């Protein structure tokens, strides 16, 4: 039963990851919280761990299609490594609803741009 739930979470996360080029965390984190009774930090951490495998295989598959731009990936990916260290550090200390609201606003603006661009 437990493994079946983990399998369902993995399959849903994997589909979103491959289809949209994301890690699938927006699907996996809520499911870990709701189905598995995870606490928020454990859900975020475990989702990230799963994403390593998900994104690696999805990226390799996209590579076979010839769609990966390695240079552009390095350009956004390397600064993001510094960001993720800062983000996990902040997560242990900040309890911030302000961060949640700021990111929500950023996402809405970018979503609108993506559709009208």
């Amino acid at each position, binding site marked *: 039963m437990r493994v079946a739930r983990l399998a369902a979470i993995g399959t849903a996360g994997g589909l979103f990851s491959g289809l949209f080029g994301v890690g699938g965390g927006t699907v996996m984190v809520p499911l870990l919280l709701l189905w598995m009774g995870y606490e928020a930090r454990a859900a975020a951490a475990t989702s990230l761990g799963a994403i390593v495998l998900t994104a690696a295989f999805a990226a390799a598959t996209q590579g076979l299609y010839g769609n990966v731009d390695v240079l552009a990936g390095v350009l956004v*990916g390397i600064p993001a490594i510094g960001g993720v260290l800062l983000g996990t550090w902040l997560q242990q200390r900040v309890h911030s609803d302000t961060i949640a609201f700021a990111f929500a606003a950023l996402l809405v603006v970018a979503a609108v741009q993506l559709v009208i661009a």
Partner: protein
Amino acid sequence: MDGDLLLAAVIGVFAGIASGLLGIGGGILFVPALTLVLGLGQVEAQATSLLAIVPVALVGSWNQRRYGNLRIRDAGVIGLLSIGGAVVGVALANVLPERALRIGFALLMLNLARQLVLRGRRDRRARLAA
């Protein structure tokens, strides 16, 4: 052009922060940076985002392991069982029209925004009650 490179790198930093804070890969910001700022097509941006996610998720989960938050066995099971879905998703992304992917991606962003607003309101209530 140099300004665009800088902007893309700065968005990369924010993608990393979002990744660490929320437990996501950061693709939700990588993809718009790659399409809107660097001018990649939607599918190429998604593919490139997946590559950028790998080191970010690796470093982030490594760091979370030090904090004692990572349940590595569950993460391994979910990750291994996600591979089938991921391969199917990539195949779909390569046959669907670009426009459909963009609209789907925008909906994914709005859904995360909704989750964040709900979470932020809950956190704020808890903070004010404490």
